[in-house]
């Protein structure tokens, strides 16, 4: 996760980190790739509060 300015080089690096091949890029929208990058970053998101099993049980 980074605050660095979005450059083409950084975009290209992220596509490689996700594991997309050069040919894959031609069959996807840039927006879809950005979604994947965001989801990768969201894996590291920190939440102030997380639901417990008790919270889930109380849904019923």
């Amino acid at each position, binding site marked *: *996760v*980074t*605050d660095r300015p*979005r*450059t*083409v080089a950084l*975009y*290209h690096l992220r*596509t490689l980190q996700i594991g*997309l091949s*050069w*040919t*894959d*890029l*031609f*069959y*996807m*929208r*840039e*927006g*879809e*790739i*950005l*979604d994947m990058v*965001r*989801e990768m*970053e*969201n894996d*590291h*998101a*920190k939440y102030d509060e997380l639901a417990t099993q008790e919270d889930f049980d109380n849904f019923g």
Partner: protein
Amino acid sequence: MFRTIIYNGKEYRFKASGATKILYKRLFGVSPDDYFMDRAEVMNDPITRKNAEIVQKNGGKGEEADKAALELMKNPEYVKTTLSFYDFAQQYAYITYLEANFEPLKINEELTVDKFVVWLMNFDESFFRENATNFQKLYQTNIKPEVEAKNAGA
């Protein structure tokens, strides 16, 4: 993400993808985003934004629109980004034309300034002026993400 434009009775197909930005930078040395970043900065000025809205609202017609357009023309940054828009349209058109008409692994051979110039000869200048918004829409649709960032910058 395709767009088809008919010109002089011939059908031209354009395709934007996840590779467009990389190909564009490879040939033209800049990112297609640069134009829109510069434009956004110019439009941050409230007076420029207001004048642009007046021109747009009236379709560039009428005394009020004429006055607003004249004011816009006094702003060199506005003029510069407006002219850059046509450069963007030509350049984006070429990259997306290649993507629609060549196999991914063959495109690199077409990424030369000479081939770009020869391709431009298929059109007169008004084609790009008239279709600039078509390429802007293709660009915008291509880059639009849907997922929101959580803890952005964390």
